């Protein structure tokens, strides 16, 4: 598990499949090989009013860690992350009286997964309740676990393949955690950050 940077790719009036195709061509031209598909999904549950102060639970799955269910509990003041095994999904079903899922917010990012050298690149088409929202590019540099050490290297890689629309600063979630050891939950945090942004901005939604 290495450092992962998640970034939005500017759609420039192209449709989702077109964007994915352009990026696939670029990454294949760099010498990457496709290694299957990936899927990250997120479902959001909110507590019923009887429980008092409203709390939100985001439940996420990542195909890179298929046996794990990630959940992030927002209490308002802070966010509590939790990594559990697959049974957590069933537990959430049992608690459906207290935590109800908002069907309109079910988001996912899926698409092809490429490997190039020690990098792993995933080109995800983001849909929120099956409406196309945009393109998310995930780049993982697997040998390194400290974001501060390999940020410049990742930036160079991203700019080499996304061009000018590559990021110039680390993701906001990572900015305070540059010296810490990276773990899969950090990727989940980044995905949630982006999913939340996509949900809030229905304007950019385009048909796939």
């Amino acid at each position: 598990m290495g450092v992962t940077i998640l970034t939005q790719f500017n759609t420039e009036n192209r449709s989702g499949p077109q964007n994915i195709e352009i990026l696939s061509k670029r990454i294949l031209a760099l010498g990457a090989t496709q290694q299957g598909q990936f899927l990250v999904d997120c479902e959001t549950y909110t507590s019923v009013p009887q429980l008092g102060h409203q709390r939100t639970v985001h439940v996420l799955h990542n195909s890179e860690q298929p046996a794990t269910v990630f959940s992030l509990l927002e209490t308002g003041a802070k966010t509590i992350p939790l990594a559990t095994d697959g049974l957590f999904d069933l537990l959430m079903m049992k608690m459906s009286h207290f935590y109800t899922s908002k069907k309109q917010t079910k988001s996912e990012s899926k698409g092809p997964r490429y490997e190039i050298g020690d990098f792993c690149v995933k080109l995800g088409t983001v849909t929120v309740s099956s409406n196309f929202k945009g393109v998310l590019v995930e780049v993982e540099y697997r040998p390194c676990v400290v974001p501060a050490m390999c940020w410049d290297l990742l930036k160079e890689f991203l700019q080499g393949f996304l061009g000018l629309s590559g990021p110039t600063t680390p993701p906001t979630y990572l900015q305070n955690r540059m010296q810490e050891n990276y773990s899969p939950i950090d990727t989940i945090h980044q995905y949630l950050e982006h999913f939340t942004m996509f949900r809030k901005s229905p304007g950019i939604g385009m048909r796939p």
Partner: protein
Amino acid sequence: MERDIEQLNSALSAIKVLRSNVRNVFDSVSNGLRADHGDEGKESKFVHELQELLTTVNNNLRDVENAVSNLTPPPGAFSLGNTTYLSQETTQERQALYGQLVNSYKWTDKIREYSAVAGNILAANSFNKTYKTFSTTKRRKTQTSNHNVPPEVIENLITSIDRLFPDVTFTTNRPLVPNPVIQVSLGRVLKAIIAFKGLMIEWVAVKAHAESNDLWAESRYKVFRKVTENCHAAMCHFHSPMMPELAVRSFMHWFHSYNTLFSAPCKRCGNHLHTTLPPTWRDLRTLEPYHEECK
């Protein structure tokens, strides 16, 4: 001994002559009457020729018998040691091994002979004049065997290097008592498993922290496989049998420069990546980072 061999040789050559003359007899018999026997009395000529040939064979046979009777029979059976088992070898390609074995035995025998002569000559012209200026303690230091050193010496060396670099941690274990295998963690960047042979570095394997400590398995990451390769090159470069401690120290000093493996750009091209690899080479003297292709 010398006489025995001489006699053996003469017996062998007598047999050779006998064999060649017997062959002549058979040649002549198989050819029968020839044109050069002429027309008149050709049968008697042929018989005469045959008689002459048989007389020579008879003489030769007598020579052989004489030569053989001069030989002294060996006392009892020869002891061939383990090589006797070679005769029981069934595979075809190994049956020739005995000949090779004899050749190599002769070769080593010659080496022993020559080195004994060389040793005598060198002892007569003493080369060790220069060493005589050293004090005895110093000389003992340089003469220590580097393969077979007491474990404490290696232990001291490792702890002294450990003290030298605060961001490097060393863990030692000893699968074979005099030869430790140490695990060197370089910050949070990488770890190396280094096997020692006495005071000399024998093998290096570079891996990610999450990977196993197996000395022989390669890292799953390209970058660490490349660094392993470069470490082997550096290990050979710094290797010095006369000053093994210095070699280990310089190697560790060089190795320490990998703590910027992911963060330092290449000195030549200024980029981080080249063929999706960071600068994996560190200059042996200046410790500056370079890509494999840029150095």
